[in-house]
């Protein structure tokens, strides 16, 4: 378990991390989310005792990091893929880490096997691709078989197979009862792996809630419709008191009504539907909305851009529920999502 209490880091005038208080619990994957420069890596470095906090405190199972006598058995961390000497072989890199914590040599072979680097164990780390470097970093994190695992942007630079592997690894580590704390700037990635979310922006805590709560609070679910008899469909839905939004490309979006009811209505009036699909608005969008506020707070003018207009979106019958008024650049993200 990791506990942060009023954690603050200041670099001169700039506040990188501002009064963060939250707890990372065992048995689940906790996603640590924020845009680039939000202070995620700084927070993680403070967790590991690499940076000294300006104020506040971090405790790992009740202890400060520097008080841990055998840190690799408490906490394994992947900070950045290339935090290693390029001239050293993968095996020796792990061996020197293992020796510093009194971990038996056999364990090095085990973790190399776990991450699938046994074949290149004797190769120098500088010849490794980003993905292999990432795997070696993860091997280092797993070395002490720790209760707590921390990954900073683990899927960066990985191919789809590697991403899939990391996702499953994190889930299985959490299911063994370990604390898994993983940072990312990709909401879509977190939606697939994390059970709990901590969102920061500009160093401040924006959200600390379960993934399900986050989805419920922040995402809009709607039904997408396509029909060759669009006008009649619009009439029918209007008569039934259902709010419809035209979403361009001849598609309609219905908020607040289930796909069943819309389908039944269409059948009743013998309307042909080419598409009737329940949709979840992108979580990426919800995340952008959440963090946009903290971004806007510091840099106004630039963010009133293309998002507000939302081309192709003509609301008929008031703004859809669940959509915030005056959203910033986040709303522009709906457009690319239309395809899926």
């Amino acid at each position: 378990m990791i506990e942060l209490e009023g954690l603050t880091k200041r670099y001169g005038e700039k506040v990188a991390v501002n009064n963060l208080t939250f707890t990372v619990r065992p048995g689940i994957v906790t996603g640590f989310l924020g845009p680039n420069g939000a202070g995620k890596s700084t927070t993680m470095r403070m967790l590991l005792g690499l940076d000294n906090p300006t104020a506040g405190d971090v405790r790992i199972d009740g202890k400060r990091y520097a008080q841990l006598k055998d840190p690799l058995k408490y906490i394994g961390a992947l900070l950045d893929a290339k935090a290693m000497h390029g001239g050293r072989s993968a095996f020796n890199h792990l061996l020197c880490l293992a020796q510093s914590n009194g971990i038996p040599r056999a364990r090095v072979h085990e973790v190399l096997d776990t991450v699938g680097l046994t074949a290149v164990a004797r190769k120098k780390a500088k010849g490794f691709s980003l993905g292999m470097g990432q795997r070696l970093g993860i091997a280092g994190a797993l070395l002490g078989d720790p209760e707590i695992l921390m990954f900073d942007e683990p899927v960066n630079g990985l191919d789809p197979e590697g991403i899939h592997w990391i996702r499953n690894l994190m889930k299985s580590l959490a299911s063994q009862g370990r604390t898994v704390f993983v940072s990312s700037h990709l909401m879509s990635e977190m939606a697939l792996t994390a059970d709990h979310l901590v969102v920061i922006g500009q160093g401040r805590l924006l959200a600390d809630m379960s993934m399900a709560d986050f989805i419920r609070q922040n995402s809009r679910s709607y039904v997408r419709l396509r029909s060759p008899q669009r006008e009649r469909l619009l009439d029918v839905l209007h008569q039934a008191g259902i709010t419809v939004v035209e979403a361009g490309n001849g598609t309609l979006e219905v908020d607040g009504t289930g796909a069943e009811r819309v389908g039944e209505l269409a059948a009743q009036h013998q309307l042909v539907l080419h598409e009737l699909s329940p949709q979840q608005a992108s979580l990426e969008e919800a995340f952008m909305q959440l963090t946009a506020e903290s971004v806007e707070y510091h840099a106004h003018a630039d963010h009133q851009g293309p998002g507000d207009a939302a081309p192709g979106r003509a609301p008929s019958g008031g703004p859809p529920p669940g959509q915030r008024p005056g959203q910033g650049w986040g709303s522009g993200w709906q457009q690319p999502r239309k395809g899926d």
Partner: protein
Amino acid sequence: MTTPPTPQQPQAQPQQPQAPHTQAPQPQQAYAGAVAAPQGPPATAPAAPPAPAAPAPPSAWQQAMSNAYTSPIPVKRTNLGHALTSEWTKIKSVRSTVWTLSIFLILVIGIGLLAVANTQSDDYQDVPFTVPAFFGLMLGQICLITLGVLVTSSEYGTGMIRTTFTASPQRHRVLAAKILIFFTVAFVASAGSILLVGLMASGAHSGPEAGDIPWGGTVFKGALYVSLLGVLALAVGSMLRHSAGAITTMLGVVLVPAILPGFLGIWDSTQKLGEKMADYNAINSLAKIFQIDDFDSATGTSQLVLLIVLTAAAVVGAFALLEKRDV
């Protein structure tokens, strides 16, 4: 399946449908335990079960904590011994060590043997048999300086230092281990090579013309001097955290006091300073240790003491900065 008041889906997490009603939740299912917290039979005590809306009831975590993972690897308290084995693995597993030490040995032994081959027994009348090693050491000390700097600063350059300090948050222990390991390696390499050259010279030129000057002390002092120079470089590398900067600084420390006296001698006011520099610069110090300077009988002890003081000061500075700074 259940009565209405039963909190069926706390936080709408995906959960195993059978979990709330099985008698004992599986200990491995920490995830389900942490979220659903299926304690107590809900049918008998409808008011008791945790409120589904309340975020993270503490009881749920405590349960999760009891299910928390424990490693089968035995936990050992780490000590300096662990740090030493780790640093030994580090120093021997990089090319820079191999290169700098090979060049050092080639310079000291190679130049030494050339000198042995080109001297006669009567050349050793006033000087110890280890003198041929001195010429190689003048150049070879640069190799030890480079290695000393790289032992610390290469970790900062590559980012390895973050991994190192994550594994060993007791930073002073890491630096102490680095100094001990480096010093041992440097001392063994330099003492070994000086000794070898001395043995060659005494073997080849032990004629009656050669003076019987004891040379055991020169092996020790010479090796100590260049090894300390390396430790000074290591401390400078740890403070500057930049390989090129630290190597340049150390070259300045070695070369500037050897060059500057030529200028300082011009003015009366700086003449004294110039003389001191000429006496105590690294090259002249080595010359004194090898008793080449036959004007006085000093054997470089005061030069060695100065270097010890300087190195100690740099090491103290490195330790002081190490704990304070972010990495």
